């Protein structure tokens, strides 16, 4: 069994007006199928990338894999456990949360502006009760900062004292704090400048190798995805239209939508 199995995952959103408005104006219910019977697997230590345009449902899938949103039907199984399993004990639930972490798109909104960096990174360690002694916690925070290329000096600073790329490193350090096994990266570099994006992508690769992390990587940028993924799923309006390795996808795209995406992506080479 794969480390992550996404099975017939479906999510509907009810966009209808309130009942009373519908009755008066005679409108019907409006149901949006954001994610429609999506299946994929991720092997341990590998990166699965979901690519799609706005409204393709990629962020909705990310939220369901992260256990932040209930699927309407279907399931996400991570290491034989399911967030939405009603029989899951509290301890197993906590263990699953600890294993599953997320790195977000916005380097500005993903760190609490009123918290010091040290506390931000220490929060998961405390919440999961990983280290009890405060001195040891402090040492662990420094270790995490160093792993993402920051230093002990930064521990007492606030998020606004850092650049976008550094904040994204802090987010990664926080995600690593709970010693996760899978990290969901939701457009982690789309708000960053090119030279900083390369730094963050390389850091993610190094960390994957060092800690044998599994990534679910969400992006709209085919070029970024091609440098990160072992497998790529192309999403269109909630449906997974094509699934392949980067080589196959870029050499022999099967679906028209994939071909269109490849043709439309601006590249440096045409010049």
């Amino acid at each position: 069994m794969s480390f992550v199995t996404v099975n017939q995952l479906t999510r509907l959103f009810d966009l209808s007006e309130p009942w009373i408005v519908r009755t008066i104006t005679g409108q019907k219910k409006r149901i949006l199928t954001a994610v429609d019977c999506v299946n994929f697997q991720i092997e341990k230590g590998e990166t699965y990338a979901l690519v799609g345009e706005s409204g393709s449902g990629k962020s909705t899938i990310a939220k369901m894999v992260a256990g932040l949103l209930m699927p309407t039907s279907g399931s996400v199984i991570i290491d034989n456990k399911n967030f939405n399993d009603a029989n899951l004990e509290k301890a197993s639930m906590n263990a699953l949360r600890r294993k599953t972490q997320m790195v977000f798109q916005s380097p500005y909104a993903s760190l609490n502006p009123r918290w010091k960096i040290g506390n931000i990174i220490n929060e998961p360690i405390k919440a999961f009760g990983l280290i009890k002694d405060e001195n040891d916690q402090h040492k662990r925070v420094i270790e995490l900062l160093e792993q993402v290329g920051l230093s002990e000096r930064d521990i007492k600073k606030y998020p606004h004292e850092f650049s976008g790329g550094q904040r994204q490193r802090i987010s990664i350090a926080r995600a690593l704090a709970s010693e996760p096994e899978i990290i969901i990266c939701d457009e982690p570099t789309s708000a960053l400048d090119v030279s900083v994006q390369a730094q963050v992508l390389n850091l993610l690769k190094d960390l994957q190798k060092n800690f044998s992390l599994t990534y679910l990587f969400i992006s709209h940028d085919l070029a970024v995805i091609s440098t990160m993924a072992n497998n790529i799923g192309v999403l269109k309006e909630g449906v997974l239209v094509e699934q392949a390795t980067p080589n196959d996808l870029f050499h022999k795209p099967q679906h028209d939508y994939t071909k269109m995406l490849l043709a439309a992506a601006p590249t440096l080479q045409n010049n």
Partner: protein
Amino acid sequence: MTIDRTMIEPLLEIKNLSVSLKKRDNISVAVDDLSLNLYPGEILGLVGESGAGKSMTGSAILGLIESPLYISAGTISLQGRSIIEAPENIRGSQISMIFQDPLVSLNPLKTIGEQLIKTIKTHFNISKAEALDRSKKLLSDVGIDPERIEAYPHTFSGGMRQRVVIALALAPEPSVIIADEPTTALDVSVQAQILNLLKQLCTERGTSIILITHDMGVISETTDRVAVLYSGRLVEIGKTSDVLQRPQHPYTAGLVASTPNIDPSSFDKKLFQIPGAMPDIDDVPDGCAFHPRCEHARDKCQKHRPPLFDARVSCWLSEKPGGTL
């Protein structure tokens, strides 16, 4: 295009432009001694990371610099006439603007027809019927069904709205359009359409465009010439293909190399990375602003700011002929 630009009179000339920021008792420089020419009918790209001063340059041309920012030095002239002193009348009719968010330029309470007609009638002394005809023509030029002239902006999708904005920008028949990240908010497929549309319209009408973007791919596919900005300074300028394929400034080279590409040979390899980040404008180092991140930096780079050599690159490595990367 293979025209030798230097033989033609520039349409828009920016000379030694500096834009400064006064905060408390400190003055920092956001755009630093920038000189640029825009020639008729070309698309000039302004590329750089956030805070490099590219949008600020666009705002300066449009006369949109507001306190605490101010133009501290330099001139901007359009067809030989300075537009820093009297920007108002020239700006509306000669220079148009396209922003990243189409909703900034559209009035949500008026139909797109009303907005187009009003813009046309402000600039041309023609009847309402004629203005309506022109509006419909503009809409069909940007690929919108003229029948939709009575529709309100919110009924259009993001890409269609940006088309409406382009129609509005073209309405005064300007000689220059400044497009500030016009496709950043759009999906890739729509982005390609909008960029092609811009390109095609400008070729047809002979309009010049300054395209401000952070995306090297967009620069590569759209522009004729490109100017690379770093910390408010021009580091390299030239024909797009030259600059991207044979970059002479280490920063340009780094930008090109760190841009991920759909290139099977690069799959699963690490990207090239420039260490560090661009300095804040109140903390720009002496000498060449890039030297702390530059692997070729020498003593001279730390002390003296390089001029623009060969009208192409601002780097001491290019001081003598033959001194390459």
